[in-house]
């Protein structure tokens, strides 16, 4: 599978063939998933197209008694936990190795032609401080493999240290700020006068506000980027992913679709009919990620989206993310980070 996650285009036929192999592997090795497939009368012998691979809801990762893993969880070298309150059940994603996960981050970055940060400045906890955060891990991979230079704008407890960002901007060198939407709001609240970022600077934000007091539209958030950091919207990238996945999706600026790497596919499902939503119509996002080799490749989210109509001929996924469904329970890495920053 590592050969498929190399940043080169994968045709639909190739993707389908690989997806069938992954589904067969997961059906055989991941018993809780196999039981689910059996309960709905589906097995690899009956599936010929990736569309029909049974998708599990993200809540299934919360069933601790039935770990979604193709290997014994005692052999897990890494576990990522979903965020949530102390009373909320957390989802667990087990990894025997993060090699494929890391490869997915790096190769997607290159395939989707994201700019290489000259100085990456992270507004979220370091992976050592947050070892079960998939977002912190991703930042660690960016620091190690993608950015030319990196530093962390958080203290030992993981709380934001705005002074480190202010100091970094005084170098008059381009910086790339990485953080959750909430961590950026903390930054904006804590700086008295707007920062002047050097030309070539840009930012990557992720996560929403569900379960917090903040309710900003993306447009309002990006306006704050403009007024507080001088960054226009086309210098801001949104990253969309989740603990239950191993790949990421990115959009640049406002009103632009999210795009994923070639080893992913998406469907937008109309929950009323439980079939594909018509192009342009709202539905829930179902994600297919070949890099999720050791758990479940088909994940049903509670995120609302529309299929992007301008890119229907493109094999790689493209969707317009509306956001987290308001009826879903509070969750999301942005919120976890907010709790840390509020300490």
């Amino acid at each position, binding site marked *: 599978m590592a050969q498929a996650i190399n940043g080169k285009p994968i045709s639909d036929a190739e993707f389908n063939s690989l997806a069938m192999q992954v589904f067969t592997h997961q059906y055989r090795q991941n018993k809780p998933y196999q039981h689910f497939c*059996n*309960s*709905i009368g589906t097995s690899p012998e009956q599936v010929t197209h990736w569309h029909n691979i049974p998708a599990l809801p993200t809540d299934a990762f919360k*069933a601790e008694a039935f770990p979604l893993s193709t290997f014994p969880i005692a052999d897990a070298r890494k576990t990522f936990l979903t965020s949530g309150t102390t*009373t909320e059940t957390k989802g667990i994603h087990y990894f025997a190795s993060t090699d494929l996960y890391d490869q997915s981050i790096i190769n997607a970055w290159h395939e989707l032609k994201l700019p290489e940060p000259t100085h990456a400045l992270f507004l979220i906890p370091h992976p050592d401080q947050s070892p079960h955060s998939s977002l912190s891990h991703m930042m660690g991979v960016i620091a190690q493999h993608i950015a030319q230079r990196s530093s962390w704008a958080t203290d030992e407890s993981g709380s934001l240290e705005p002074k480190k960002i202010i100091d970094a901007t005084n170098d008059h060198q381009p910086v790339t700020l990485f953080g959750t939407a909430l961590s950026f709001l903390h930054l904006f609240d804590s700086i008295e006068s707007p920062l002047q970022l050097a030309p070539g600077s840009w930012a990557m934000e992720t996560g929403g506000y569900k379960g917090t007091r903040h309710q900003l539209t993306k447009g309002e958030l990006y306006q704050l980027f403009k007024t507080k950091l001088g960054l226009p919207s086309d210098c801001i990238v949104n990253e969309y992913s989740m603990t239950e996945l191993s790949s990421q999706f990115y959009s640049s600026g406002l009103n632009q679709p999210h795009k994923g790497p070639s080893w992913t596919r998406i469907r937008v499902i109309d929950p009323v009919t*439980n079939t594909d939503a018509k192009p342009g119509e709202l539905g*829930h996002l179902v994600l297919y990620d070949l890099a999720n080799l050791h758990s479940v490749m088909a994940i*049903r989210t509670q995120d609302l989206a529309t299929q992007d109509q301008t890119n229907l001929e493109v094999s790689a996924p493209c969707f317009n993310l509306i956001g987290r469904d308001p009826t879903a329970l509070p969750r999301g890495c942005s919120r976890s980070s907010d709790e840390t920053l509020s300490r």
Partner: protein
Amino acid sequence: MTTTQERIQLIAEACSHDQVQQWTGAITADDLHAWISSELGSDMALETFLAHGPLQSKAIAPACILHIVSGNTAHAAFQSIIRGLLIGSHNVVKIPSAGLAELTDALKHFPDALKELIEIHSTLEQQDWSRADVIIAIGSDESIAAIHQHTKPHQIFIPHSHKVSIGLVYDDFEAAAIHAASDASLYNQRGCLSLHAIYVAGDSERFADLLAIEMEKFSQSNPADSLTVSEAGAIRNLRESTRFRLSNDPKVILLESGDSLDWTVIHEASATLQLSCLNRCVYVKPLPSELNTAILGPESEHLSTIAIHPFNQANAVSLEHLPAHRMCPLGQSQQPSLFWHHDGFAPLASLVKWKDIG
């Protein structure tokens, strides 16, 4: 300025109209007299000074009540407004920005003398906050907290935050299933008095089967409202998550209305109270030998009503230790008496202040 007697007649007249009665229930003038007498000691308490121990006392209604209502159902909004009207206050009603057509449409049938006491706003100005003597807030915990920040020390604040109700079935499953289906289905489960879970003594799996049959019957005779994408997605997510659990845990049972999303019944062994995703999705659980907040879990702090079958005084009193403010017969959870203490508040007495002589 109207008298209590006049307002009673006007409210009774309004509540006799079908479009109003569907939200308020049948309310007669005699009911209103009895209600005021029960809460304030006399139906003349707002009109004149009456003996109160060694004193003479008169109830004083707030000049202005600000009602901030949610969009879940119109019931709570009507209850709140009727209380304000009955004591003769001016009522400023903040409705959700998306509107609350059930309320505004039905208010058209109120007599003019009552309409004059009601203002409907979709946004609030500073003067709306400052002129209120009482602020009644109905909504999520987050909304209530935000509204509370606007209140001044001299203002009475009455919060009606997130609540959840449950059923308890001890016996007589066939009748209980009919009542439970009604309590879990009415108003698409969107109110505080809607049942999210039913705890069953004895063969709870059999009860789940019976409940599913009655949910289907109720759905046939009372089709659910059409669902938004979000609501439908929440039901699909609940069903698929449950399907995953049941495929690995034979004690979990999922009963559902086929491909449609009309109703969902989930049987599971855990006694922990979980919130339903609403829209006629209900949990059935075995009744543990002891029912307390530790067993029910954190959601028990939000208990509003416990609906019991068969209902008797002893059964109800045995649940007194739980945080719920109301124990009632199963099948009546969604029809509280005019006299009920809404979330523990005396609905009229908590609005008034008193003047004493002597």
